[in-house]
């Protein structure tokens, strides 16, 4: 690979990384504001007009907080797990496309791919990375030597692996129709009709399993505040605590991007807006829905959670896959 190519990749990585961090920071504000207005409050108001500087203030505060390492903690895993939970989530963004080939409003001579890299196994790579995130949680819960954290970590692990199966199975309908694991090809195939029309059940399973994977309400048992303090990150403070949250919000963005690409036609839309704008609108609608769920639903019980996952969602995903396969065979 040439030197110019390497610099080009580095520029793309820096742009994606910076935009992602900005989105993650402002997602916390968006969530607080949306929830506040749903509960007839106003949310953060003091840092800047309408609290617009709140995420920056929070970031600075967390960075300078005391980094407490409890006596009984296993130091190595205690430091490893925040890093282990954020790195795989960031890597997902290496393959997520943000738009079609574009010359960025005529700034460049040749159109470039609006993504860091494209593999032939994009979807497989994404699910592999999202599976790795479980380790951060388990190590985090175990290393603190804190009973609440241990219970939270174990619950989280069992929940993540249970819904991981349904999460992966939900995209098979799309893969069957598209016959490809490449995200840009999948978007290109939705030119006539978005896949959500062919795969409504698949989309609902995807959304449910994604919310469970993101450990958001109504599936937020691992960090059920009222019984487990904060679950697997009970004893974490300062930047380590922030890193768990960055990972959580970055995975919300990742899941919304994936849902947009697989089911909602990605960046396709009427031509009066540029493709990237369509893409962002769809992504933010999905993010809003995920926040909205938190404002609406109560938390499930743990036995309900496992029952729902194994006895309903997974069999339903298999039915969905085989019905899709039969229809493809009949149409052909």
């Amino acid at each position: 690979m040439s030197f110019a190519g390497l610099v080009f990749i580095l520029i793309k990585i820096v742009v994606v990384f910076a935009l992602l961090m900005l989105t993650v920071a402002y997602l916390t504000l968006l969530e607080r504001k949306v929830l506040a207005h749903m509960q007839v409050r106003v949310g953060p108001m003091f840092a800047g007009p309408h609290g617009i500087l709140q995420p920056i203030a929070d970031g600075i505060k967390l960075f300078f907080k005391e980094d407490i390492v409890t006596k009984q903690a296993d130091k190595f895993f205690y430091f490893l797990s925040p890093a282990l939970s954020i790195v795989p989530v960031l890597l997902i963004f290496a393959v997520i496309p943000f738009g079609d080939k574009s010359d960025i409003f005529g700034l460049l001579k040749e159109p470039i791919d609006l993504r860091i890299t494209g593999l032939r196994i994009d979807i497989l790579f994404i699910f592999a990375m999202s599976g790795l995130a479980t380790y951060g949680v388990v190590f985090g819960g175990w290393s603190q030597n804190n009973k609440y954290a241990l219970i939270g970590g174990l619950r989280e692990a069992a929940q993540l692996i249970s819904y991981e199966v349904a999460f992966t199975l939900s995209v098979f309908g799309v893969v069957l129709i598209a016959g490809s694991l490449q995200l840009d090809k999948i978007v290109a195939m939705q030119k006539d009709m978005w896949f959500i029309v062919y795969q409504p059940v698949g989309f609902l399973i995807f959304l449910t399993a994604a919310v469970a994977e993101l450990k958001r309400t109504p599936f937020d048992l691992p960090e059920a505040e009222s019984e487990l303090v904060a679950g697997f990150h009970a004893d974490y403070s300062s930047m380590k605590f922030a890193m768990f949250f960055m990972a959580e919000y970055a995975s919300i963005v990742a899941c919304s991007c994936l849902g947009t690409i697989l089911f909602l036609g990605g960046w396709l839309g009427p031509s009066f807006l540029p493709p990237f704008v369509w893409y962002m609108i769809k992504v933010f609608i999905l993010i809003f829905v995920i926040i909205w769920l938190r404002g609406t639903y109560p938390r499930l019980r743990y036995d309900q959670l496992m029952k729902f996952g194994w006895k309903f969602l997974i069999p339903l995903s298999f039915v969905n896959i085989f019905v899709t396969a039969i229809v493809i065979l009949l149409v052909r």
Partner: protein
Amino acid sequence: MLASYVPILIFAIIAILFASVTLFMSNLIGQKRPSEDKLMPYECGNIPVGTARERFPIRFYIFAMLFIVFDVEVAFMFPWAVLFKKLGILGFVEMVVFVLILLLGLLYVWGKGALEWE
């Protein structure tokens, strides 16, 4: 082919650097006023009894085993799904048989009551 993985490697290095440098800097810069109580694990204000290295319910283990079975299956299904249109009816029947065998296992576990969380 392999060239498309190079950006991922670079991104991985940057991500690991970001995580470790941030954690290290925050640990270095943040104030340090440790006290006996602060370094105790937080268990709702009670003084912790014993360690958390306790035994935990076997159910977690059963779910982990079930997960491995199903996740390996999912990995098998990816190439099938990509090539489905070429495989046609034969591919469909083969996958139905394969999945049915696994679902029988799930039904057995279900009947045994291992999925109940009481």
